[in-house]
């Protein structure tokens, strides 16, 4: 039985990325045009994809029968959704919600009425899908996606989780694994075996479950690609968003090593490479490919200052710096981005960090999107560094630009006290 567990612990691996591309149940894959079509070559059969549990896709508008275990999973998800609807950090901005939901609906096709999306104000690159069709999209994702296609790669991935019923598959798989281990431990105890064997078995069990979860992620990635292809988006965007994320992690100096036994997702490098390969194979077959950059920027740019502030508020300079560097490489509204780099350094408070902040403020001036409050921040930093004449100049410039600032009286009294200090010295 241990050998069986070991064998089953082998992951489906890379062929699973293509499962979504072959899924006729989701709709006719436009790629199956000719017999010589690369993607038409079957890499994995349906049975191999569901190693333990054979599950068909959920059907559009289907609700599981109430006596099934799936209905139990939906019950919990429905209750969680009721509280997400009331949640404080749910964004109720109608325009943004309609942008995100419009895309979710388009990608989901026949499943549009089964899926609901909620945008939540959380500064991480993530989105999640509940088994009942509730999707949560974090603002950190909207901030980092460079265009509509990149965002849709992730939204499509989440829809893939829903239509392939991964939550129910996972629950059944965990229950089966734990039951096998329980009977195994009973058998071991019956023959008077040592306890060390049980540690090994449960470790194999956990590794097995994690491998299954990684395979689910690969399969969902494939569905994301499929939906990009079907809706005419550039399929290479799926790989590009991973490349952005990897660059951000490298700049932040994150040394997190991929744990092949316990990782819940495949390594970002694997996802970038495989999705890139498949994307490059699909791209030539498309007559027109949309990236949706202008549409995405029109939604994100007016709102991104709040989300960047959320990231800076995490108080991790390396992280904020890396994110802003990647956004600067993207090259839009650099004035705003350099201002926020300055803000991230200003928060740190030490002399070197304050001086670096000033450098960034100066880089921001004269570029697009520079906010007026830059002069206030600059003035406050200069005052901290006791460069009094420059501080007064910056603060007065700010007050001339934004006389209605609620802190105007406070700033004026600060200017006065700096003047007094200069007068006294």
């Amino acid at each position, binding site marked *: 039985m241990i050998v069986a567990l070991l064998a089953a612990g082998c992951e489906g691996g890379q062929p699973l990325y293509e499962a979504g591309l072959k899924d006729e149940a989701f709709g006719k894959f436009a790629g199956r045009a000719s017999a010589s079509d690369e993607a038409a070559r079957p890499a994995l059969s349906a049975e191999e994809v569901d190693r333990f549990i054979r599950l068909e896709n959920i059907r559009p508008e289907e609700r599981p029968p109430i*006596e099934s275990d799936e209905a139990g999973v939906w*019950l*919990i998800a429905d209750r969680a959704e009721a509280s997400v609807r009331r949640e404080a950090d749910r964004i109720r901005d109608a325009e943004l919600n309609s942008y995100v939901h419009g895309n979710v609906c388009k990608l989901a096709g026949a499943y549009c009425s089964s899926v609901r999306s909620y945008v939540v104000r959380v500064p991480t690159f993530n989105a999640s899908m509940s088994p009942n069709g509730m999707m949560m999209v974090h603002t950190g994702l909207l901030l980092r996606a460079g265009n509509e296609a990149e965002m849709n790669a992730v939204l499509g991935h989440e829809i893939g989780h829903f239509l392939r019923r991964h939550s129910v598959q996972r*629950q059944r798989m965990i229950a089966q694994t734990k*039951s*096998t281990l*329980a009977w195994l431990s*009973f058998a071991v*105890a019956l023959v008077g075996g040592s306890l060390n064997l049980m540690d090994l078995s449960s470790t194999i069990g956990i590794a097995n479950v994690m491998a299954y979860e990684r395979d689910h992620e690969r399969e969902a990635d494939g569905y994301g690609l499929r939906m990009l292809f079907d809706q005419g988006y550039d399929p290479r965007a799926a790989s590009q968003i991973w490349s952005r994320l990897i660059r951000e992690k490298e700049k932040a100096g994150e040394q997190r090593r991929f744990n092949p036994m316990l990782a819940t997702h495949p390594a970002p490098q694997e996802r970038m490479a495989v999705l890139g390969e498949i994307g490059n194979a699909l791209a030539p077959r498309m007559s027109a490919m949309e990236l949706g950059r202008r549409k995405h920027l029109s939604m994100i740019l007016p709102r991104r200052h709040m989300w960047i502030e959320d990231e800076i508020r995490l108080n991790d300079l390396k992280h904020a710096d890396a994110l802003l560097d990647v956004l600067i490489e993207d090259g839009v509204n650099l004035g705003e981005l350099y201002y926020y780099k300055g803000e991230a350094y200003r928060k740190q408070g030490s002399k070197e960090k304050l001086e670096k902040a000033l450098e960034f403020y100066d880089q921001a001036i004269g570029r697009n999107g520079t906010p007026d409050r830059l002069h206030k921040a600059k003035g406050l930093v200069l005052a901290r560094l006791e460069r009094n004449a420059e501080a007064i100049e910056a603060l007065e410039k700010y007050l001339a630009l934004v006389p209605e600032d609620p802190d105007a009286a406070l700033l004026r009294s600060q200017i006065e006290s700096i003047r007094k200090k200069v007068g006294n010295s």
Partner: protein
Amino acid sequence: MVTKDGQSARREAGRQWRDADTQSGDRGPNGCGVAIFFVRCLTGSATAAILSKQGGRGILQTMPCPRMSRFVLAMLGCILLAACETQHFLADPNLDLSRTNPAILVFPIDATLAELTAGGSLEINALWTQQAEGFADEALRKHLLGLGGKFVEIKSAHFDEASLAKVSHLVLMHSTVSAAISRHKYEWSEALPTHEGRFDWWLGQSGQAIIERTGARYGLFISVRDSYAGPGRVMLIVSASLLLGVYVPGGRQEGQASLVDLSDGRVVWFNRLSREAGDLRTSAGAEETVKTLLTGFPARKP
């Protein structure tokens, strides 16, 4: 605006509550805690005996257990555990609702029923859950009527957007506070030192909106998490017990019930149920569970 007189009146009332609590006898060891202590001693000494064969000792040897035979420990543990299904607290032991007979707002019972698999996973069963909520609501209605109580059921028609938000707030506050009560009043090691043994928990003022809209003075919250051993688990329990002499636990019923005075948000009664018995899947079982959950409810039968 609280006047000086108002302040001293409130302080006096507060002192009365505190004195009442001292008399309530809710301080110090109670039946459930003592029973668990004896059972821990028994299992501790048994495990220590096994481990000492393999050379391990550890902290089990330092547990301050009475020197008695394991048999006596087991008997005492069993007797006390049998009485140990519920344990309740009252903010004021003299509270008797049957005297004033106020209206009680009954919140829908929050139940989750699951099947326990052989490996110990809980698989939630939506059909059982839906049926159990129906049985339990019905049983609760009958029980409260039997006590001569006036109750109001919560209907969305009572509330508009704004007051509905207040109701949600109260429900959320209640789930947080009841989790805190469960933790700090039912585990000796987690007792809050500043409470000094009192039962002193409040939900804040959101209940005012409910009083205005429904005329109810108190709110009754009940929640139950129940699990039942599935066929695989039953097989494992029986095999382990017969062939190995090892105890494998079956399903458990964990529930809590609380009565909140909506005028000031004070939790006036709280009961926790924890046992390996009880079946919410039948209407008779639901009646028994509700009756057990309402142990110590501050109202006498007319």
